[in-house]
């Protein structure tokens, strides 16, 4: 139960990028989990070569990922969005990107599990009789911090408010004097930058292989849809629900069922309530 709550904080971190890109910008970036895994491998390489802390690496790499995201969005925009063909072919495009990232990683690093080392990974603290592993606690706290940061970005800064405007009303955006494509590029960059940090958290929690991204496609989209497409608070709530559901399922039925939970929830959420938990 506690593990599930902690897992939820981490899932929120993983899903923020999708919430932003898919929920608010309406861009079906199903390659997001691949970017997260890319973040994991960046953390792995830095940790192995320079002994750098994984989460610190994740933070340091956010500018790199931001630029990567901006470039991918520009390509997407020029090839699909501007021609008005985004839905179908855009989806296939991101599917291809996902595949390229995954296969590139397995070409470079093979299909063995990779992990990072840090002083806190093996330790745990005792809170009222419940042992809490730092391995889970730290990612959860960082995840919560990321959620808060993104919330502040969207509600307090000019660009953040412009992103909200893009999702709701193009006219309002023009009145603010902002260029929608530029705003979307920034938002997409931020979403991918979040993946860098989320990837670092992921490899702190558990070892990673290139194909780990597949497990997260369902989780991310389940959380985003359940959370109400772009609502940051909703994302957090949905992430915690999913985390708890998965760890309960795993305790009672065995770990092989836990993945099915997220996809099962996703299917039900899609079929019954496309507007999400806290949806309109």
């Amino acid at each position, binding site marked *: 139960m506690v593990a599930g709550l902690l897992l939820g904080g981490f899932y929120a971190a993983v899903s923020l990028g999708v919430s932003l890109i898919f929920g608010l910008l309406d861009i079906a970036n199903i390659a997001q989990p691949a970017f997260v895994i890319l973040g994991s491998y960046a953390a792995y390489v830095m940790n192995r070569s320079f002994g750098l802390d994984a989460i610190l690496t994740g933070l340091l790499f956010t500018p790199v990922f931001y630029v990567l995201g901006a470039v991918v969005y520009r390509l997407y925009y020029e090839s699909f969005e501007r021609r008005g063909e985004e839905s179908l072919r855009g*989806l*296939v495009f991101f*599917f291809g990107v996902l595949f390229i990232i995954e*296969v590139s990683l*397995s070409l470079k690093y093979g299909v063995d599990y990779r992990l990072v080392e840090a002083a806190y990974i093996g330790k745990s603290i005792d809170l009222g009789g419940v042992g809490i592993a730092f391995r889970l606690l730290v990612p959860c706290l960082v995840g919560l911090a990321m959620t808060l940061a993104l919330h502040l970005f969207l509600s307090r800064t000019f660009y953040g408010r412009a992103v909200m405007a893009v999702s709701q009303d193009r006219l309002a955006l023009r009145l603010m004097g902002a260029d929608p494509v530029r705003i979307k590029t920034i938002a997409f960059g931020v979403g991918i930058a979040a993946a860098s940090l989320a990837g670092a958290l992921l490899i702190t929690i558990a070892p990673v292989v290139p194909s780990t991204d597949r497990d997260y496609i369902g989780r991310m989209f389940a959380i985003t849809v359940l959370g109400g497409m772009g609502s940051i608070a909703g994302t957090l709530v949905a992430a915690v629900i999913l985390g708890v559901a998965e760890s309960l399922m795993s305790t009672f039925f065995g770990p092989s069922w836990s993945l099915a939970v997220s996809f099962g929830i996703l299917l039900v959420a899609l079929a019954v309530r496309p507007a999400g938990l806290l949806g309109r």
Partner: protein
Amino acid sequence: MARSTRTLLVGLAVVGAGILLAALRVNPYVYFAGYVILQYVVIATAWNILGGYAGYVNFGTPAFFALGAYTAVFLIQSTRAPLPVLILAGGLVSGLLGLGIGYLTLRLRGVFFSIATLALSIVLQTMIINWEYVGGSRGLSVIRPSGPPFGSYVTFLFAVMVLLSVVAVTVARFIERSWVGRGLAALRDNEEAAECMGVPTLRLKLFATTVSGVLLGVAGAPFPYYVTFVEPTSAFNLDYAVNALAMPMIGGTTSWVGPVIGAVLLGTAQQLATVTISSEMNLFIVGVVLVAFVVLAPEGIVGLVRRVRGR
């Protein structure tokens, strides 16, 4: 009438040529690789009926394929049913799943539909992993029946796959040229307008998802006998999902020729790459080629050819 006779003759000729090739007993690897390529012809064609004609992108191809394969495994385990029964049953079960997916389109369009199909694939895989009777996560050995009608069992399966691809392509071609195909194209362009112009969109979508499901299941049913060892990871391989959409995208989605061209080109390239380089490298190539085509040549090879001819 004359045209359909010609189609029939062409189809029969292809089947005949396939059987002849099977009887020639060239290098066994040719049949082994040829089976995979033909299997992709069926898969790509089936995917395209829903994805290309109706515009609903299915990421859950592995679910339908594996459902066909596991239906066969179940029947082999329980009754040792003959191959034609396996194929029919695999098609039937996958077709029912397709019908179910069709009802999803009532509420889910575009991206949401695609994500739901992906989710479906994972849920189904989890169920199979936890079903010991068909091998669970460890997999199951399947013993081929002794004495195929001709040649070795692999050449026989190769001939069966020739027949199945001819059937699949004929079905796709028939749909494309009939009023059903025109109605699907209308709903692909604009579902609301299509419904308002008298197109029974729900019925057509159910038809497309079901036919697509049947053909994918049919492609999967002989799979246990081909590999002789079935386990979830290979049956639910994501490669099927990528190839199923990459092949039509590369060939061209609006015509039955597109998926065939795509499957033959990409399938052959992959078979060669797997032997000469590595299987990861071949998947990498698929990814790059796929992205290159959607960005640079959205109409696929068929579209490129048409554009060149048009000028």
